[in-house]
């Protein structure tokens, strides 16, 4: 078995690691607000819509990653628009967009000729698939996501707490809601290559949910969420390389271990 230091000499693993840390940061910060706003399934639907973008990218000989980014942004804005303009409940809108985009994605894939190993990588994540370009794109997307989340940090908290109070205070709630959807879409895009479409939203939700067990206030909630998310991403990457498993499920399972551990401080607080 290679030592982890030796492993770090592989350029593909270095790239995966950089992307892993970026994913950890973005999903952690976003996840805190996604769980507070009860939008977990929104992120699930957004990530599944990436399948259409990737399939279309391959079919039309475009960059599948860029096609996916464009498509997830389009779908998340459409979901926001339909929820805002119709009387349909958000879970109905999510249900419709979720299943339709999976159906469309699978249909396009069936039009592709031959066996596509790279599609499996997009579904479950593959550290070998992370190119230098992907690293740069992830870096730009992560910087945008983190910048907006922290720059307008108080606004997101006020929106999660009570949108009406935020609106009376002069916050333009509708615009912020759409920005939030775009940020969700971009985060999904950052995590796409390493985690895979199926499990992206798990890494958005689980570290934030686990952090609630450890945190006593909002600032520590943020820090715990980031810590758990980065450790999950990095440890998951090494484990997936060591045991030759898909990177996405491995990362998500490490995060799940943290989620289970988060019950310990909650239990101790209750019993004391």
């Amino acid at each position, binding site marked *: 078995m290679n030592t982890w230091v030796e492993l770090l000499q592989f350029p593909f693993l270095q790239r995966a690691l950089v992307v892993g840390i970026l994913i950890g940061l973005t999903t952690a910060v976003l996840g805190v607000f996604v769980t507070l706003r009860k939008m977990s399934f929104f992120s699930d639907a957004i990530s599944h819509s990436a399948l259409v973008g990737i399939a279309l990218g391959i079919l039309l000989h475009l960059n599948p990653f860029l096609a996916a980014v464009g498509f997830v942004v389009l779908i998340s804005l459409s979901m926001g628009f339909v929820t805002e303009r119709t009387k349909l409940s958000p879970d109905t809108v999510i249900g419709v967009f979720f299943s339709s985009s999976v159906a469309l994605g699978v249909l396009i894939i069936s039009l592709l000729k031959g066996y596509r190993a790279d599609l499996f990588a997009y579904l479950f994540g593959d550290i070998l698939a992370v190119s230098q370009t992907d690293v740069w794109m992830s870096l730009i997307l992560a910087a945008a996501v983190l910048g907006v989340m922290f720059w307008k*940090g108080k606004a997101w908290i006020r929106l999660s707490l009570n949108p*009406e109070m935020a*609106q009376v205070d*002069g916050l333009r709630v509708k615009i912020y809601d759409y920005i939030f959807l775009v940020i969700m879409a971009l985060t999904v895009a950052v995590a796409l290559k390493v985690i895979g479409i199926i499990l992206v939203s798990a890494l958005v939700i689980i570290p934030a949910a686990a952090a609630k067990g450890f*945190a006593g*206030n909002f600032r520590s909630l943020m820090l715990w969420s980031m810590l758990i998310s980065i450790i999950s991403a990095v440890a998951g990457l090494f484990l997936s390389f060591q045991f030759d498993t898909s990177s996405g499920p491995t990362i998500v399972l490490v995060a799940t271990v943290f989620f289970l551990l988060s019950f310990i401080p909650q239990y101790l607080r209750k019993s004391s």
Partner: protein
Amino acid sequence: MSSSQHSTASCPTDILKVSDLSVAFGDLQVLRDVSFAVKEGEFAVIIGPNGAGKSVLIKTVLGLIPAKSGRVDLQVDNQDIGYVPQRLHFDPSFPLTVRELLLLKLPQAAFWWGRKTSEQRVKRMLELTKSSKVIDRQIGKLSGGELQRVLLAYALVNQPKLLILDEPAAGVDVVGEQTFYELIDLVRHTGVTKHIHGQAKPHQPEHVTVIMISHDLDAVYKYADNVICINRQLLCSGIPNKVLTPTVLAKAYGRHKDVFHHDHQYHQEHEHVG
């Protein structure tokens, strides 16, 4: 919501003037031709039975719900309004502390890194609303009464000119409720700026205007300068002792609720209507 910078009314001026306001949700008419005014410095209480449209009225005044017809003239900007809704509907596991909640209305840097002036202001506001003890508690772990006092502090922290409270005492026990009304009264008479700076600012109005929805008629008689009684339409508005006639109350609450106070004396039986 419309607001104009200059007003022509005599002193004290109307801080809020609602004229022929109607609100409808589809075919359902919730408010019809409601008109009333609230003067600067007043403690105005909106009363009416459940489903009378009280919250809708407040939300329309605040611009959260569009009006079907009529006018709302509000003489203050949004940042000068402190609003507390009836319920927050937040996730109780949200680990936001009382300190963090109040910092949300102060400069961004203070929230993430802490700053002495902001910290001081938070502490003063919690002192004013008698909730200093809960500064490090999570808002989801407060009792109903504690949360109401903390939300009052939150509404007051950036020194509003107008305080709008949607049934702040709902779900709070009678003793807690009484304390809350006393607290509002205290805030009105001592002013907010004084509690922040140690002394009143020269250009800040010392008396905060309060508009509040209430179910408690006793409190209305004891504290309110102006009562607005509605049941889908305006039933009366003015000084409680003058306008709350048996006919008006019967119209609002039905015949069985005709036990009320005609005089300004405060009785101890704590009758509640609603």
